[in-house]
């Protein structure tokens, strides 16, 4: 890739968009940094440190320590005693699989600052990286007792329970998320999918209603429409259903299938 092909301002704007959008584009970040933005570090101004942090995490993600280490050194020079930079150093230990050292650093950070939520969350990530899912769940539930409204943590807890196969607790986590973000069709879809996986007539009916809600919030969500069709057919196949409900469900299923074929 040619060095001067990309306009460094465009790259900077793209990185900023990815930062704000909260998406994971680690390979692209590393590539554009290496081939373009690295040479214009000094022109970035105040934004430079946020970009360095973003590139550092992307470098760790792609196992490119040759990219990540200079960023960490630059950040350390600029912010000598900072807890945030210490957290980044601990993340580097995690990437090198030195989990015990990483845990030590996080414990130090927490001892120094009791309110630091990111260090606690990283401890959960360390346990997850080691594959100790049950310990990670325990640590995360402790964290949620202190910081109840952290929706990212609830999402992570839901994911961990799904890994364990504990669908009822995962459904509870999704319920918390729906409570805090009732307009988000993706949460409704996921909750309905968990209920569908659990099976049984009651769960099927709940799944059907949540798929309906997701389709209402976003008519373009094909996953919700298809889920609606599947849950309707499942409900129809159950023996104990009144005739009127059967007719309604059948109509719903045909409508959902028509919508899916139109998209």
């Amino acid at each position: 890739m040619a060095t001067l092909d990309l306009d460094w301002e465009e790259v900077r704007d793209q990185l900023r968009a990815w930062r704000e959008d909260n998406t994971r584009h680690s390979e692209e970040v590393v590539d554009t940094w290496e081939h373009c933005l690295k040479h214009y570090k000094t022109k970035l101004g105040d934004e430079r440190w946020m970009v360095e942090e973003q590139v550092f995490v992307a470098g760790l993600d792609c196992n490119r320590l040759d990219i990540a280490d200079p960023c960490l050194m630059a950040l350390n020079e600029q912010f000598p005693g900072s807890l945030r930079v210490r957290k980044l150093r601990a993340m580097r230990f995690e990437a090198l699989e030195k989990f015990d050292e990483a845990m030590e650093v996080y414990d130090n950070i927490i001892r120094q600052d009791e309110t630091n939520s990111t260090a606690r969350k990283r401890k959960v990530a360390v346990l997850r990286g080691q594959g100790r899912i049950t310990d990670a769940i325990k640590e995360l539930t402790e964290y949620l007792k202190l910081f109840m409204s952290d929706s990212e943590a609830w999402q992570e807890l839901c994911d961990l329970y799904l890994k364990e196969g504990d669908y009822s607790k995962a459904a509870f986590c999704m319920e918390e998320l729906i409570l805090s973000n009732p307009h988000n069709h993706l949460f409704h879809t996921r909750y309905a999918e968990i209920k569908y996986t659990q099976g049984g007539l009651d769960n099927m009916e709940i799944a059907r209603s949540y798929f309906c809600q997701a389709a209402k919030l976003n008519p373009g969500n094909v996953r919700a429409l298809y889920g609606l069709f599947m849950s309707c057919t499942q409900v129809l196949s159950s023996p104990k259903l009144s005739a009127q409900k059967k007719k309604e469900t059948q109509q719903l299923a045909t409508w959902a299938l028509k919508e899916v074929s139109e998209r």
Partner: protein
Amino acid sequence: MSYRIYRAYLRVTEQEYTALPTDISVQGLLSLLLAMYGILHIAGDFKEIRANVQLQNKSWETVGNRPTFYTFAHRGRALSPNYVMPPSSSPQDMVETLPS
């Protein structure tokens, strides 16, 4: 400010207060219009009121991304040029290195 000065002036000269003089009201109106114009240009684009419209085009990848919980122990590591295959212990793994 100029309104206060005007009223003080009227009180001093014992004139009746009927209405604001034209220049002060014109001044006020012009500054309002100028402020509105300036704010509209600085504030940026309007955002849609309905909360669910923003989410229409977002996938689970974006919304479900949790940057504070990133783990680095995934298969993407193997794609980097720095990747070193871990030393294997079983004879099956040696099959790949057989010359054929």
